[in-house]
């Protein structure tokens, strides 16, 4: 079976009409916004879509959902995974109940609900954050960036990445996250210090400050040229120093 996608023009029209359709997004009935005649067959082979809701109807954890989506679309290439047309159909139709359950509540209290819809139901913008904002593409990209078949559990680092939301924001929403050796060093360090981070009262601040220091380091050194062992050492040392610095 081939995956379907939404044609360009209907996708653009849908994005144009977010304000008009806000109530539909709030209700979760986004499937009604998609006309079958606007869908096309893609060259991406896929079996039946996984269920991202658990038996109680609640969204599965990001980690579990990420594994399911990445395994489901394991043959997707980065070029295909950067194509909005796929993700828009997946958020509006295939996984509409999941997206509503996972992100729909935010629409009630958002001061800019249109922006939230753009972030979670669409795949717009030239920044790196776009990849990890769309409700479904983020799950695929988390898997793609962290899957490591040399490990006993290939999704070990996916679990680490999704254990603390600050890691995603601090690293994946910035160009720094594109550096695979760095990302690996960061996640392995977090894995080692998971317990310390859990015990730290403001772990979010620690991660943000730590990421800032790594960015400064990346301003002086070309991270891709630093041997992985040294990079890991630098990343580790900077987190240890942060963890031992008393919170202000």
């Amino acid at each position, binding site marked *: 079976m081939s995956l379907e996608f939404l044609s360009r023009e209907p996708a653009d029209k849908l994005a144009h009409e977010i304000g008009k359709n806000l109530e539909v997004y709030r209700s979760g009935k986004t499937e009604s916004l998609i006309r079958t005649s606007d869908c096309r067959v893609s060259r991406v082979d896929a079996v039946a879509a996984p269920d991202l809701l658990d038996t109680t109807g609640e969204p599965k954890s990001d980690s579990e959902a990420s594994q399911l989506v990445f395994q489901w679309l394991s043959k997707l290439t980065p070029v295909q*995974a*950067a194509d909005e047309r796929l993700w828009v159909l997946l958020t509006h139709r295939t996984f509409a109940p999941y997206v509503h359950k996972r992100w729909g509540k935010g629409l009630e209290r958002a001061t800019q609900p249109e922006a939230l819809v753009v972030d979670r139901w669409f795949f717009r913008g*030239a920044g790196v954050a776009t990849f990890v904002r769309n409700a479904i593409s983020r799950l695929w990209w988390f898997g793609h960036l962290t899957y490591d078949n040399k490990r006993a559990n290939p999704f070990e680092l996916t679990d680490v990445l999704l254990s603390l939301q600050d890691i995603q924001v601090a690293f994946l929403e910035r160009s720094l996250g*594109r550096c695979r050796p760095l990302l690996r060093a960061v996640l392995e360090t977090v894995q080692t210090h998971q317990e310390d981070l859990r015990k730290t009262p403001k772990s979010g601040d620690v991660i943000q400050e730590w990421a800032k220091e790594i960015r400064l380091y990346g301003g002086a050194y*070309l991270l*891709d040229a*630093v*041997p992985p062992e040294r990079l890991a050492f630098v990343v580790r040392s900077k987190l240890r120093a942060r963890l031992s610095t008393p919170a202000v």
Partner: protein
Amino acid sequence: MPNGFDFRLDVLPEYKRWILGIEAADDDGTLAHHVRTGKARYLVHVECKRTYFRGALTSDKPRFEMTIDGDSLFGLVEVSVLVVATKDLDDYRHPNQHSDYRDGTFSVSIGEPLAVAVSQSFDAFLEADPILKLSSIIDIQRDDSQRVMQVDCTVGNRIVIKLPSAEFDRYRELRADPAIRGLLSNAVILPALLDAFFFLRSPNLDLDEFKADHRWSRSVLSRLDRMDVDLTDPDAESSVCLEAAQLLLREPLRRSLEDLSELFKQ
């Protein structure tokens, strides 16, 4: 000192990969010496924001190539070339360093750049829509009345390929095998596209009217337009049909031969 470090970039797009040919300037004796003695290397750094791609390759030769999967790049790609330290250098100095530094020396660590060229960029275009399945404009049907394959591109939104029963059954059986998709494409789809493209070039065809009623023609012509191929140009040689069909099918001959090579290896 004025920065004279520069590089030449040649981009060679192939079907399954991009090859970046790098030729870094090596006329700076100090830098060249550090590379020769293993204390530094040339490094090419490539980033593509559209696909979240970031990669680097080092070389001890000023001329080298970097190969990147064809499926990894799309849109603007930035290429930077540097000379980076590969060993910690305690007393690095350059004879042409700025006079403010006089004869001062510097501690340089692994990964720090010794020279940075102005970045260059190129547009990683796509030969075909990365997700649209070509078969969505092609409908392959069984037709008991046919003795050989027939093509009808005038009946609706798709190009209809009619196969005699035995061939249709065999086709349906084989198409599930990804190992021979290139071969099947060459055997069935390529001739059908050729047939349809020759039809589009018919002198008496009212193209606008035909496009209005046949979605496949709108789809194909707009995709060819993006590839700078004008199938309907009356001045174009008839070989334009073969060229266009091969472009749309993403090098079917190469894929077929690759399929065959793989099959023989097995």
